[in-house]
C-alpha cells in the first residue's frame, strides 16, 4: 500500500452532524488507478465521506487532499475546476436532469465544458450510451426509464468528461442481475482502460470482492479495516470478519445509537 501513490489522502479528519460525531479523526489513503470499495453498515457515513471528498460539505477539522489539492480550503472556482478535471460522481438516485432527454443528459457536461462541434458531441454521447447498452434509449425522458436504466444513464453521464476519479454511491442497489453484471463489468473495464481511480460505496460484499483492489471498512466513526479483500476476510479483526461474512451478531453494531430498549418500553407514554 505504501508503495502506491494516493489520489485521495485524508488526514486527521473529523465531521459531525449536530452532536453526532460521524467521523472521528480518520486517516485514509485512496490509491491512484485502483478500485477502492468503501463498506460499512448503513448510516455510518459512506455517502457523507463521498460528499466530503467532493467538497460538497466541509469537515470540522483535518485535510482532504485530492490529487494534491486540499479540497476544504479551495475557493469556489478552484473547486469547480478540480471537479471538472478530476471527479465524476454517480449519485445513489441517479440524479438525472428530468427536463432533458437521455441524450441531452449525457451531452450536458460535454457541451458545457468543451467547445467540441455538435457532431463530435453526438459521437461521444453515443459511445458512452453504447457502453451502458442504452444507445437505443437516447430519445427517452428520465421519467420513462426504470431505476436500473436511469442508473446506467447516470453512469454514462458521470464518465462523459473522462474524469480521473469516479465516486460511485451504491451503484449496485436495486439492479436486476443482468444490469448488475453489466455495471460491475463496466466499472472494472472503465477503471482498467482509462486507469481511473474508482471509489465505490457498496453493501454488496460479493460484488465488492470481485472488482475491488482494496476494501475500506467504516464503523462507528472510524476506519476499522483497509486492505485487499482476501486479506480482510482471512486476517481481519473479529468485527471485520463479521461484516465481510454478513453475520448479524458481533462487535459491529446494527442499531442506531439509542438508550436501553427495555427501559424505553417501560417508560410508557408520557
Amino acid at each position, binding site marked *: 500500500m505504501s508503495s502506491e501513490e494516493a489520489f485521495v489522502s485524508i488526514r486527521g479528519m473529523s465531521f459531525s452532524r449536530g452532536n453526532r460525531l460521524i467521523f472521528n479523526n480518520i486517516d485514509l489513503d485512496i490509491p491512484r488507478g485502483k478500485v477502492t470499495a468503501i463498506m460499512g453498515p448503513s448510516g455510518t457515513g459512506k455517502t457523507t465521506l463521498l460528499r466530503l471528498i*467532493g467538497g*460538497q460539505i466541509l469537515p470540522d477539522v483535518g485535510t482532504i487532499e485530492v490529487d494534491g489539492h486540499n479540497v476544504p480550503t479551495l475557493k*469556489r472556482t478552484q473547486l*469547480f*475546476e*478540480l*471537479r*471538472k*478535471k478530476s*471527479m*465524476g*460522481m454517480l*449519485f*445513489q*438516485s441517479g*440524479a*438525472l*436532469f*428530468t427536463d432533458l432527454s437521455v441524450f441531452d443528459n449525457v451531452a*450536458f*457536461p460535454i457541451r*458545457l*465544458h468543451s467547445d467540441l462541434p455538435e457532431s463530435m458531441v453526438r459521437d461521444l454521447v453515443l459511445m458512452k450510451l453504447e457502453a451502458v447498452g442504452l444507445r437505443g434509449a437516447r430519445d427517452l425522458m428520465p421519467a420513462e426509464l426504470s431505476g436500473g436504466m436511469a442508473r446506467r444513464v*447516470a453512469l454514462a453521464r458521470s464518465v462523459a*468528461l473522462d474524469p480521473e476519479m469516479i465516486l460511485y454511491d451504491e451503484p449496485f442497489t436495486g439492479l436486476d442481475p443482468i444490469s448488475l453484471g453489466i455495471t460491475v463489468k463496466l466499472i472494472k473495464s472503465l477503471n482498467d482502460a482509462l486507469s481511473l481511480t474508482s471509489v465505490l460505496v457498496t453493501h454488496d460484499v460479493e460484488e465488492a470482492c470481485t472488482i475491488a483492489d482494496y476494501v475500506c471498512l467504516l464503523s462507528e466513526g472510524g476506519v476499522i479495516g483497509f486492505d485487499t479483500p482476501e486479506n480482510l476476510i482471512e486476517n481481519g479483526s473479529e468485527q471485520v470478519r463479521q461484516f465481510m461474512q454478513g453475520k448479524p451478531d458481533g462487535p459491529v453494531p446494527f442499531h442506531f445509537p439509542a438508550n436501553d430498549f427495555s427501559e424505553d418500553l417501560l417508560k410508557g407514554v408520557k
Partner: protein
Amino acid sequence: MLKLIDKILDSIQALGNASLGRLQALGRAGVFLLSSLMWGGPGSAGFGDLVKQIYSIGVRSLSIIIVAGFFVGMVLGLQGYTILSDFGSEAALGTMVSLTLLRELGPVVTALLFAGRAGSALTAEIGLMKATEQISAMEMMGVDPLKRIITPRLWAGFISMPILALLFSLVGIWGGAYVGINMLGVDEGAYWGNMQASVEFYDDIIKGLIKSLVFGLVVTWIAVYQGFDSIPTSEGISKATTQTVVVASLAVLGLDFVLTAIMLGSI
C-alpha cells in the same frame, strides 16, 4: 417574582433568536441574489435557456393574466360608472379605469397572480431538483447551479412581469370600455378621448412599469430562493411553496405602498 423575570428574559431571548434567524435568512437570500446576478446578463446560461424560461414563466401565465385583467376591468367599469354617474361625470369613466389599472391594479394584481401561478411553480421545481440531487449532480460536474438554474429564471421573471402587467392593464381598459360603452351607454368618444387626454406617458405608464420591474425581481427572487433553500423532502417543498406565495404577496403589497409614496413625492 423571579419566575416572572425568568419568563420575560426567556421570551426576550426567544425574540432575539428569532430576529437573528430572520436576519440571517435575509442575509443569505441577499448573497444568493447578488451571486446569481453577478453571473451577468440574461444570456449567461445561453439564450435558448432564457427563452425556455420566459416561455414557462411568462407565456404560460398569459391566459390567467388576460382573463383576470378582463374581469377586473369590467368590475372597475361597473363600480366606476355607479360612482361617477352620481356626479354626472360618466364621461370620465375611461380616465378612471385606465389610471387605476396603469398605476396600481395592473402591476399589483399581476404580481399577486404571478406569485401564485409562476412563483409557486418555480419554488416547487427547484425544490424537487434539490430533493432528487440534480443540483448536487450539477455541482459535482463543476457547473454552478446558480448560473445554470437561478440566473436565467431571475431574468425571465424580471423581463416577463412588466409585459404581463401592461397586457393586464390593456385588457382591463378594454373590459371597462366593454361594460361602460356597450352595457351602460357611456359615450364611446368620451371614454377613449378623456383617457387619451389624461394618461401621461411618464407619470402613469413608465411609473407603473417601474413598479412591475421591481415586483418581477422580488417575486422571482423569493420564489427561487425558497426553492433553493428548501428542506429537500415533500413536506419541506410544500412548506417552501406556501412560503413563496405568502411572502411574495406581502412583499408586493408592502413595496407597492413604498414605491407609490416615493413616486408621488410624499416621502
